[in-house]
């Protein structure tokens, strides 16, 4: 594999950049693999990469129904953070933050990680208390957190609405300075390129039709491009989890819902942080291209549509304008949707299953992108060692039976409620 460097950039300039190697190959599926990862999104690609890098398992195929970068890894709002209160979420996410910081060097691919900080706005004294508690919990877990008062917030984001007579005045906020954003496509491409270079087969346009399970063990997977013999399968398919679970006669604590995002027309730099509204569900950042990147609530009913409906978008943007009135002057450039695997406690599942050789990675709800490296790393460990790592022990499937839920938001089982 050609290394991406200034020297190679200059060298290739002489041939008008026509002679770069392909970032990854387009192989025909082999008859047999050691591990098959279903789903070539960020998590699947990262899993394959860490299987090869950390566990020396390279006879691996990634099976993707669409194309690399076409799913949620290319549809999210690129926010990276670890501002969680519960230990399981906090330690897992902070482990991920370390991987994010090293990612560009590790992958030899500029993922444009930008630790610009995230501010969760508070709109009441009670909310300030809740944030103080969460901030303290974060600090106890070694995560940076700063509780900001109204004036401190105003200094950082003066464009927010600080007038007195508004429905949700800004009382302050909780900031995680080390949080940020990254270029989402680059994450997918970077992992794909490195995984490919270590021998992983990335097989696109290949749909899973069924599974060969015999005596409670995985024997193989049937795909639109032929049958593959394999002893270990990792399921990493986000919003399509229920469809594949149905083929395995499994019913999971997951519902598939639609989440929208949108960007405004590009404008000059105005917002250098990620900011979330505290009285609803709205988050915003500005991309390097100048677009305001925004998102918020689910559409609110089970959906596989991958495109949004207007009432939710209108609702979300109303919150945005309440928080930052200047947004009403901007034109909308694009809106889109992705399908989320909403778990019943709002936390993910990375675990073994009752079928030997079948591993599950799902339930990422609103927060799949930021978890990409940590999810891949722990899932690779779970598959390679056939046991969960302590980092993903809390993300077990059994918790819905035992009652050890990870209800970070305390929303309960109604996943469509925002």
């Amino acid at each position, binding site marked *: 594999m050609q290394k991406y460097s200034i020297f190679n950039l200059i060298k290739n300039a002489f041939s008008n950049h026509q002679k770069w190697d392909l970032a990854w190959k387009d192989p025909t599926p082999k008859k047999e693999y050691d591990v098959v990862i279903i789903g070539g999104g960020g998590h699947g690609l990262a899993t394959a990469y860490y299987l090869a890098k950390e566990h020396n398992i390279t006879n691996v195929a990634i099976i993707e129904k669409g194309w690399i970068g076409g799913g949620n890894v290319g549809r999210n709002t690129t926010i990276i953070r670890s501002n969680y209160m519960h230990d399981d979420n906090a330690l897992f996410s902070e482990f991920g933050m370390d991987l994010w910081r090293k990612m560009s060097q590790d992958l030899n691919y500029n993922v444009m990680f930008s630790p610009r900080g995230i501010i969760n706005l508070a709109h009441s004294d009670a909310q300030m208390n809740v944030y103080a508690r969460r901030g303290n919990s974060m600090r106890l877990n070694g995560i940076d957190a700063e509780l900001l008062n109204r004036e401190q917030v105003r200094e950082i984001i003066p464009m927010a609405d600080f007038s007195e007579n508004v429905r949700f005045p800004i009382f302050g906020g909780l900031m995680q300075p080390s949080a940020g954003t990254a270029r989402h496509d680059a994450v997918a491409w970077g992992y794909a390129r490195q995984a490919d270079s270590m021998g992983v087969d990335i097989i696109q346009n290949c749909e899973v039709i069924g599974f060969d399970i015999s005596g409670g063990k995985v024997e193989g997977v049937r795909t639109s491009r032929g049958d593959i013999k394999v002893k270990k399968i990792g399921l990493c398919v986000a919003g399509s989890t229920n469809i594949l679970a*149905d083929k395995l006669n499994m019913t999971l604590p997951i519902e598939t819902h639609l989440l929208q995002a949108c960007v405004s027309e590009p404008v000059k730099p105005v917002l250098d942080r990620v900011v979330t509204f505290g009285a609803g569900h709205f988050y915003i950042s500005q991309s390097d291209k100048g677009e305001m990147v925004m998102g918020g609530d689910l559409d609110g009913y089970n959906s596989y549509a991958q495109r949004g409906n207007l009432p939710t978008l209108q609702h979300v943007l109303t919150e945005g304008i309440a928080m930052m009135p200047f947004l009403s002057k901007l034109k909308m450039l694009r809106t889109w949707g992705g399908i989320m695997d909403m778990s019943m406690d709002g936390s993910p599942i990375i675990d073994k299953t009752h079928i030997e050789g079948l591993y599950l990675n799902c339930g990422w709800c609103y927060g799949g992108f930021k978890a990409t490296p940590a999810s891949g790393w722990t899932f690779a460990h779970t598959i390679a060692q056939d046991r969960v790592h302590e980092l993903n022990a809390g993300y077990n499937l059994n918790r819905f039976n035992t009652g050890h839920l990870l209800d970070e938001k305390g929303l309960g089982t109604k996943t469509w409620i925002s």
Partner: protein
Amino acid sequence: MLHIKCPHCGMRSQNEFSYGGDATVKRPELGKEISDHDWDNFVYNRKSLRGKHLELWQHLSGCRQWIKVERDTATHEIFRTSKANEDNS
């Protein structure tokens, strides 16, 4: 924007309704021996498939009645609606 035909009020905009989830989920009967697994299925586990989906909606900003809607989760086409107590499974 979905248009949902309330069996009591007629065709109305989605904005008047709130969602209530899978309508095929049945609470285990009281007084019967129920396994943990049955409770899991009632509380947490959902099929949530692509295609036809029978679901509950409440006409919150209208007659406030709960209704059943059969909708396609991929195309959002609504095939039929009925009163919540009508058996159409």
